[in-house]
Structures are given as C-alpha cells and as structure tokens.
C-alpha cells in the first residue's frame, strides 16, 4: 500500500497512525518476522524496519542492545532486505519504511541500496544521521525511484531549517518529540505541542511523532495536539528483551501494547476532531 493511501484510509477511519519500529534480526530473524506480523495484525499501520548498525548514535540503551544482539546473531543488510521480501511473500500489506544509519547505505552504494529496498517492497527510507545538509544525493535518487526519503525535524530545529526541510519532505515528516535518544522517558512538554503546531501550519504532509512514546496516553496526547500519528519502538523491544532466550513468549504482551497504542491513536484523533469519546 502506498503511504498516501494509508494515511487517507487511517484518516477516513477517524484514527491517528501508528508506526512500529523494529530492529530486524534481534535476537533472530524468525522472531523478527513474527514480531512484525504481530504488530501489523494488532494496530501498527506502518512498519519502520531497522537494519542494525554497530554504532547507532540516535538510539538509547534498548535499541543499542537490540542492534548488538542482532549483529552477534549474524544479521546483514542483505538478510534484512530478504526479510522484507519474505514478509511481503507471506502477505504483509503494511507500508514499510526502511531505516538505517548512513554508513550501511554508503557501503551498499546509494543506488544499489535504494533499488534493493524498492524491489523488496519498501515505500520509504529514513536515515537518522543524514540531516538535510547531507541528504541531497538521496533526495534526488529516491524521487527518481518513487520512494520517500523521510526527513526529521526536532525541537531544536530553527524556523529557517524547518522551511528548508519541509520543502524537501515527502511521505511524512518524522518529528522527534524530545531532545535525546530513542527509548528516552516520555516528556509531554509544551514545546512538543508547539512544534507540532508549527510544522502542521507549514505543511500538508502528515506528521508522525517519535522518541519516548511507550503508552496509550502518550499517543493520545500527541495526536490530540495535532500529530497525525506516533512512532513506538523501544517500548516493544523492552518487552521481549527481558525474555531474550524465548522472546516468542512475549508476543501476546507486545500485541496488547500495540492495541493499546492504536487505541491512543484513535482517542487522540477523536479529541483532535472534537468528537465525543
């Protein structure tokens, strides 16, 4: 499914969107496949599919550990892309955003990386260490291939930069809701709401808020504040990481949280639209 269609469908249903972020191969590929399917069946509208990297500088402790375990288990970028293909073959319809740090892309070669991603059934790519200053080559290539390069804005982004980023944005804007790393403690600050407003005022592209979101209330608050959706990642990894020798046992708990988050997305949207709950 195309991202535009997805957002239209979600909006038509009166919901906020829920993107679930997973690092593939942690602790093994079979689990990641089941995890992604579980998330998609329980309220994740988009899958942010992470290729593990050795030095994930935008990620907190939970995702660092996830990357470390996945790499130890022998996952490679090629296996990750195979994993997406496998998911598509098994019937996954959910849009997939492929996320990884720039060195992985640089090593595969930009064109090669994007071609393989597209062949596997990816809708967009997100590179957390590629600010707009460095993004030009990927912007051009993704446009040519009909892929979205998902750009990020942060609480520290100046007005000037914001306009520059929004002018290049495609698919959706990933709004980093706090100053810190993934898996940080949720901080419902006025600044996040203000930033959401500021971005929404300047663009029609959907705005997804990420970092530090782990509960239904978080999703509800942010979407009520104007966001089109939320991103949840570390909160899912935290659940299976405590039972890493048999993470499959935790899938039902993960499904429960995914449904909760989705519920928050629905309630937030209702508050936003001023519909009685």
């Amino acid at each position, binding site marked *: 499914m195309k991202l535009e269609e997805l957002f239209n469908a979600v909006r038509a249903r009166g919901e906020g969107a829920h993107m679930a972020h997973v690092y593939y191969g942690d602790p093994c590929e079979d689990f990641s496949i089941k995890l992604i399917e579980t998330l998609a069946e329980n309220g994740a509208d988009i899958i942010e599919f992470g290729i593990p990297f050795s030095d994930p500088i935008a990620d907190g402790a939970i995702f660092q550990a996830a990357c470390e375990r996945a790499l130890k288990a022998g996952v490679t970028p090629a296996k990750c892309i195979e994993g997406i293909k496998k998911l598509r073959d098994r019937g996954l319809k959910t849009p997939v955003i492929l996320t990884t740090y720039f060195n992985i892309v640089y090593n595969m070669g930009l064109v090669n990386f994007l071609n393989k991603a597209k062949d596997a059934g990816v809708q967009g790519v997100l590179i957390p260490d590629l600010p707009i200053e460095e993004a030009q080559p990927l912007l051009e290539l993704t446009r040519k291939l009909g892929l979205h390069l998902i750009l*990020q804005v942060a609480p*520290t982004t100046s007005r000037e930069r914001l306009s520059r980023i929004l002018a290049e944005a495609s698919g959706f804007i990933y709004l980093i809701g706090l100053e810190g790393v993934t898996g940080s403690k949720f901080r419902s600050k006025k600044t996040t709401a203000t930033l959401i407003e500021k971005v929404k005022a300047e663009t029609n592209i959907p705005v997804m808020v990420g970092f530090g979101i782990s509960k239904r209330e978080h999703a509800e608050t942010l979407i009520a504040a104007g966001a089109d959706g939320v991103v949840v990642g570390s909160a899912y990894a935290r659940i299976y990481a405590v039972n890493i020798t048999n993470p499959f046992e935790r899938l039902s708990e993960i499904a429960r949280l995914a449904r909760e988050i989705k519920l928050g997305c629905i309630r937030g949207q209702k508050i936003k639209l001023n519909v009685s709950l």
Partner: protein
Amino acid sequence: MKGRFGIYGGQYVSEILMHALIELEEAFEKIYPSQEFQGEFQELLRNYAGRPTPLYYARNFSTLVGFKVYLKREDMVCGGSHKLNNALGQALLAKKMGKKRLITETAAGQHGLATVMAGNICELKTEIFMGVKDIQRQAANVKKMKLLGAKIKPVKIGAGVLKDAVSETLREWAACSRTTHYLMGSTVGPHPFPIIVATFQGVIGREIREQILEKEGRLPDAIVACGSGGSNALGAFKAFIEEENVRLYFVEGGGESLESENSAAAFQLGRPGVLHGSLMQVMQDPYGQIKPSKTRSAGLNYPGRGPEISYLCEIGRIKACYSFDNEVFDAVKVMARTEGLIPALETAHAIAYVLNHREEFSPGDIVVINYSGRGDKDMETILRYFYEA
C-alpha cells in the same frame, strides 16, 4: 564544500544536533579571531599551559639513530600532553557562548584531564564518558580527573573503549546541547569540530617552525607524529602542509599485528565510511559495521582517522605508518635510557617508527618527533610489560 576535505568530513548527525553545530561554527568564526578571546587565550596558553613548549635536540637519541632528532616537548604542557591546547581553547569558547557545562569522552585520560582543567578555569562543570576497559587501564588519570571534580561516566556498551564512549557522548549531547558544549578531543566528528581542534592544535606546528628556523636556519626534513583521530599530528603538520620538502609521517597503532581484531591501523585496514558524524577512513566489516580497534595504547584505540588526515593521506601528502605494541614498549625503554624521558605509549609509536625505519632518513636529515605526552599514566602497563611478562 564547507567542512569537506576531498570526499571526507561532513555532518552526519541527527537533526537534533544540527542547531548546536551551526551555533558552534558561527561562534567560532566570530569569537576566535576577536581581540578579547585571543588576549585571554594566549595568556592561558603562556602562563597556565606553559607554552611555548621547548624544541629539544635529543643528542643521544640522534647519535643512536644516525641523524638529527628534535623532540617537540608537548609532554611539558601542563597536564602532560598536547590535549590542553585544544581543551583551553574550546572551554573558553564555550564559556563565551554562554554554555554551563562541558561533556567529553576520553580514552587515555589525557583529554579528559585537560577538559576538567580547562573547565575549572572557565567555571564550567565537566562530565567525562570513559569506556570501562579504559577506566581500568588508565586508573591514574581517572583519579586525577575525579580529584579535579569531574564526573566520570563509565561506558559499558560495545567493547567499553573510545569508540563506544564517543557514541555515548553524542547521545548525551542530543539531550543537553542547548546548555552544554561537547568538547571534542580530536580532529574527528562532524564539521566544525575537525577544523576547530586543528586550529587550536596548530600552535604546535607554528612553534616548531619558528624554533627550528632559529636553531637550524632551515625547515626540518621530516616530522613524525603518532595518531588516530589525528589532533597532535595535524597540529604539528598544519604549518608545513604547503612545504613540499618536509616529509610528514603519521604513525598509527599497529597493535599486536595487522591481523584483524588485533590492530588499530585504520589506514592499513580501513576504507571510507561514516562514523560519529564524519566521512573518514574507518575500520569496518564488509557490510559497513564499524570494527573495534585494538592496541595497548588507549589513546590510539580509535577505528577512524579524522577527515583532514584521511584526505592528506589519500593525496599522498602524509605517509601512513604504524608501530606494533612490542616495538612501542622497546621504544619507551630506548627513550628512557638515551634521554631520560618516559614517553606516553601513544608518543612511543612515533619514536618506535623512527628507531625501526632509520633507512628512510639520511645522515644529514633533521627530524622532528612530536613528543605528544609523558608516560606517567602508563607506568603500570609499562612495568607489567617489562617485569612480569
């Protein structure tokens, strides 16, 4: 392009940090040349750090190797290494920018020590990230940093070494960049750090130039410096890059051998890649996962070479060399016995290179070794090597 050296350099960081890099670049361009900054900075370099450092003619060592060797005595900078040149500059800059706190990472402990010294002078709180393995092997410096009031943050992730500490400091910075300055210790990281650090360390080469002209009436034939990120080397080389007759030798940590997992020689084992915000020569596996480097010398234990050093190597302006751990320990002994000086293990890489590659120099040559630091911090490791092995 801004912040690029050939293909190397750039700003590969999260959007969260871009404002801080832009702010830093603007502040550096405005504040660094100002009379007020220069006045205070030069005063600190002179009367606190102890600059200019001597250029010492090492007569006995010269006799041993068969050509003239001068030592640029950065070990005599207060704190025991060249690291203070940069720490003082950046701390003063941070203060003028209105920052309240410094964070940084350290491996050998020299940069951490220099940062807390500079932080205290500039009345800025200091927090230092250090890999658990490095905390263990550089215990003396850890004690000093604590005594000076730095908060030490042990880094357990990865191999618990410098690479992991840099990642952790970048993460911390993302959470506090409005009030806190990341005092980058080497010529690495996103633009403008490599330029700022090279500018502050450039004092080494400017002094060498002046001093050697005074002593010898001509420029040296070669400058030899150790490095990983490249701060002491680039500092020594900068004033000579346009001088084609001055050969520049960059000596990396060879570790035990060049076999994988046992070396830190990124120019031998690496290729271009992005780590910690910059495109540079870096050790990595076939897929682009960064490989941990390994050497007995904590200060050279970084898998990347800074962007400018990477570029100078690529265009053939510097020669990339390496020394192995055993050669390094032997070099410590030679320096101790000939000149009565105990070098840091990092510095001993440069000394070892000269000792083991005498054929690359002629009898009439004048060679300057950048004697980047003293070996007090390594005494335990050195004694264990010689008396317990």
